[in-house]
C-alpha cells in the first residue's frame, strides 16, 4: 500500500463552513491524519474504514470524505491519491483519453441506431405474444367506442356498394389462413378521416364511405385495401407500435437526460420522427402482406397500385414533388414508391 505525504488542501468539520488550510498524511497502515497548516494541531485522525475517496472526475480535485461528515479537499485539481485503488479511476481515464473519446464519437451513434431500429423492433415483436388477447380486445373495443362517439357516422352507402365490400371481405376471410379469429368489418361515413381505412388490434377494420366511393369501379382495389388493413392486424402492429414508441421514448429520455429548452425541441422532434419511421416500416409490412395475399387469391398486385393511385389523385398531391425531406415527416411510405413496388411485383 502507498503512503501519502503532506498533501496541502482545505479541511472542514462535519456540517461546518469553517475552512482550515490543512495538510493530509496517509501512513502505511492507511491511517489518515489531517493537521492544521497554521497551528499544527491535529484536526482529524481516521482509520482506513472511516474515510473514503471522492469520485475521480477530469479537471476536479479528489476529496476525502470522512465518516463523521468532515471533508478534505486538495488544493491541486490534478492531484490524484496514490493510495486510492487504481480501478476507481477507469472512468476518468476513458473520459480524458483521446482514443476512447474518438471511439465513443464513432460508436455511440452506430449503437444507438442499431438499438432503436434493429434491437427494439425485435424486442417489441418478441413482447407482442406476451400481451394477452383480452388486452388487445380491450384496446380495440375502447378505441372503437371512442371513435364511434367522436368521428364516425352511420354509412350512407347503397346496399349494393356495401354488399360488394362485404363480399370481398368474406372471401378473404374464408380463403386466407389468418391467425386472428375476430375480424369484423365496419363501414362508416367520416368527414374527419375522409377516404381512409384503419384497423384496430382486436381485428376491427373500418373503411370509410369516401374510400369505397373512390374505388367503387375497382372492387379488387377495395380488396387490396382490406388486405392491407388485415396485414396490420396480422402483424399486431398496434401493440408493436406501443412497445416500440415506449422503448424509443425511454431510451432517449434516459440517455439524453432532462434537456433544457434547446435540446428539448430537437429530442421532441427526434422522437416524433422515430415514431413516423416505425409507422412507415409497418405500412410497408402491411403493403407486402396485401400484395402477397392478392396473389394467393388469384388477383393481380396491380389492384393495390390502383388503390394507391386513386388515393394519390384524390389527395391531389403531385407525385413528383414529394421530396426527400418530406419523406421523414410522413407516417406512410412515399405513395409513388408503394405503387412502384406493386407494379414491380406484377411483372
Amino acid at each position, binding site marked *: 500500500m502507498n503512503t501519502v505525504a503532506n498533501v496541502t488542501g482545505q479541511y*472542514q*468539520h*462535519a*456540517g*461546518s*463552513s*469553517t*475552512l482550515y488550510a490543512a495538510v493530509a498524511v496517509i501512513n502505511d497502515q492507511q491511517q489518515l491524519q489531517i493537521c492544521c497548516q497554521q497551528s499544527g494541531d491535529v484536526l482529524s485522525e481516521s482509520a482506513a474504514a472511516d474515510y*473514503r475517496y471522492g*469520485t475521480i*472526475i*477530469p*479537471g*476536479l480535485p479528489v*476529496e476525502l*470524505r470522512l*465518516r*463523521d*461528515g*468532515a*471533508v478534505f479537499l486538495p488544493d491541486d485539481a490534478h492531484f490524484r491519491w496514490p493510495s486510492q485503488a487504481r480501478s476507481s479511476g477507469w*472512468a476518468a481515464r*476513458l*473520459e480524458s*483519453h483521446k482514443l*476512447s*473519446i474518438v471511439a*465513443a*464519437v464513432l*460508436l*455511440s*451513434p452506430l449503437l*444507438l441506431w442499431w*438499438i432503436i431500429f434493429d434491437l427494439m423492433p425485435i424486442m417489441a415483436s418478441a413482447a407482442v405474444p406476451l400481451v394477452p388477447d383480452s*388486452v388487445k380486445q*380491450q*384496446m380495440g373495443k*375502447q378505441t372503437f367506442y*371512442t371513435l364511434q362517439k367522436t368521428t364516425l357516422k352511420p354509412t350512407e352507402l347503397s346496399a349494393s356498394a356495401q354488399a360488394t365490400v362485404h363480399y370481398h371481405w368474406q372471401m378473404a376471410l374464408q380463403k386466407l389462413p389468418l391467425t386472428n379469429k375476430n375480424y369484423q368489418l365496419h363501414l362508416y361515413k367520416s368527414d374527419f378521416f375522409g377516404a381512409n381505412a384503419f384497423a384496430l388490434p382486436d381485428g376491427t377494420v373500418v373503411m370509410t364511405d369516401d374510400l369505397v366511393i373512390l374505388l367503387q369501379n375497382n372492387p379488387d382495389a377495395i380488396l387490396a385495401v382490406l388486405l392491407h388493413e388485415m396485414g396490420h392486424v396480422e402483424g399486431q402492429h398496434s401493440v408493436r407500435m*406501443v412497445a416500440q*414508441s*415506449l422503448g424509443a*421514448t425511454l*431510451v432517449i*429520455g*434516459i*440517455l*439524453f*437526460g*432532462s*434537456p*433544457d*429548452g*434547446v*435540446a428539448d*425541441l*430537437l429530442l421532441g422532434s427526434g422522437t416524433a420522427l422515430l415514431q413516423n419511421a416505425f409507422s412507415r416500416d409497418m405500412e410497408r409490412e402491411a403493403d407486402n402482406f396485401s400484395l402477397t395475399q392478392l396473389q394467393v387469391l388469384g388477383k393481380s398486385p396491380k389492384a393495390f397500385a390502383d388503390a394507391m393511385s386513386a388515393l394519390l389523385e384524390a389527395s391531389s*398531391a*403531385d407525385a413528383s*414533388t414529394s421530396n426527400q425531406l418530406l419523406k421523414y415527416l410522413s407516417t406512410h411510405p412515399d405513395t409513388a414508391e408503394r405503387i412502384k413496388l406493386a407494379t414491380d411485383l406484377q411483372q
Partner: protein
Amino acid sequence: MENSVSNDAASAENKPQRASKVVFSGQGGEFFGIWIVNLLLSIVTLGIYSAWATVRTRQYFYGHTQIEKQPFRYLASPMQILKGRIIAIVIFALFFAISYLSPVMAVVLAILFMFVSPWLVVQSLKFNLRMTSYRNVRFAFHGDYLGAFKYFILLPILSVFTLYLALPWALKKIDHYICSNTSFGGKKMQVTTDTSSYYIAALVAAAIVFGVMTVVAIIGVVLGILMAVTDSGNASAAALMTSVAVFVAYFFAFTLSGAIYHCMIRNHLFERTELPGIAKFKSKMEVLPFLMLTLTNLVAIVLTLGLAYPWAKVRKARYLASVTSLIIYPQIDTLVDEQQSENSAFGEEAAGLFDVDVSIA
C-alpha cells in the same frame, strides 16, 4: 449601486460584507470527453450506467461552479439515482401502456397523475437540494404535499378560469413557494417578490409573441399576393415554404419571449431573495446576449448533429454564472448545521429506501 457603497461604509466597523461573483470554470472540450464516453457506456449497458453518468455530470458542473473559490458539491450516489430511475421507468411504462389500451383509462390516469405529481415534485426538490452542498453545508427543501398541490396544480388550473389573467400571479406564487422553502444550513431563504413584476414580464412576453406573429402574417400575405400576381412557383412548394416559415417564426417568437421573461423574472427573483445574515443575490441577465446564446447553441447543436451539446451546456453554465453575483456576510465562514453532523456521511449508509429522486432523466 449607491446603496452598496454606503452599506460598505456603514458596516465596515462591525461586520464587513463582501461582494463576490459566481464563477464557472468547466471547459467545453473537457466535458465533451466526459459526456460522449458516458453516453457510450450508458448505451452499452442498456441505460444502467446512465445513473453513474448523471452523477458524474452533476459532480463536474457542481465542482466547477464556485463562489469565493469554494465549489458546490453533488452528494448523491449513483445507486440512489438508479433506484429512482427504475421506479420512474416502471411507473412511466405502466402509464404509457395503459393509456394506449384504453382512452377512458388514460383520462383516469391523467387525473390520478395530477394528484401524484406534487408528491413527485416535492420528493425531487427535497432529494436534489439535500444532495447539494456548499462549503460542507447542505441545502434542504421544506415544502410539503399540500403546498405543492396548491401551487403546482390548483392555482394554475384556477387561473385557466380567469382566462389566464391570474397566471402571472400563480407563477409568482410557485417561485415563492420553491424559494422560500429552500434552506441553507438550516436557514430559510426570504423572498419578497412583487406580483407586478411578474405581470410586467408576462405582458412583455405576450406582446413579443403577438408582435412577431403579426409581422410574419403581414409578410406572408404580401408574399402570397406577390406570388399570385406574378403567378410564379407551384402551389405545393409554396405550401411547404409557408409551413416552414410559420414554424420558424413560431419558434423564434417563443424563444425570444421566453428569453425576455426568463431574464426579467430571474433578475427580479434574485434581487428579492436573500439568505438572512448569510448572503444576498444579484442577477444581471440581459435579453440580447441570452437570446444569442440560446440561438447559437441551437444552431451549433443542429449543425453538429448533437455533438456540440456539451459545449453548449458548458457555455450556458458559464454565462449564467457570469451574470450572477452575491453579497456575502461573514456569518458564512462560521456556519454549523447541527442536524447534518449527526448522520453518517456515507450516502448509502444514511439513505432510506425511498430516499430517491423518482425521475427518468
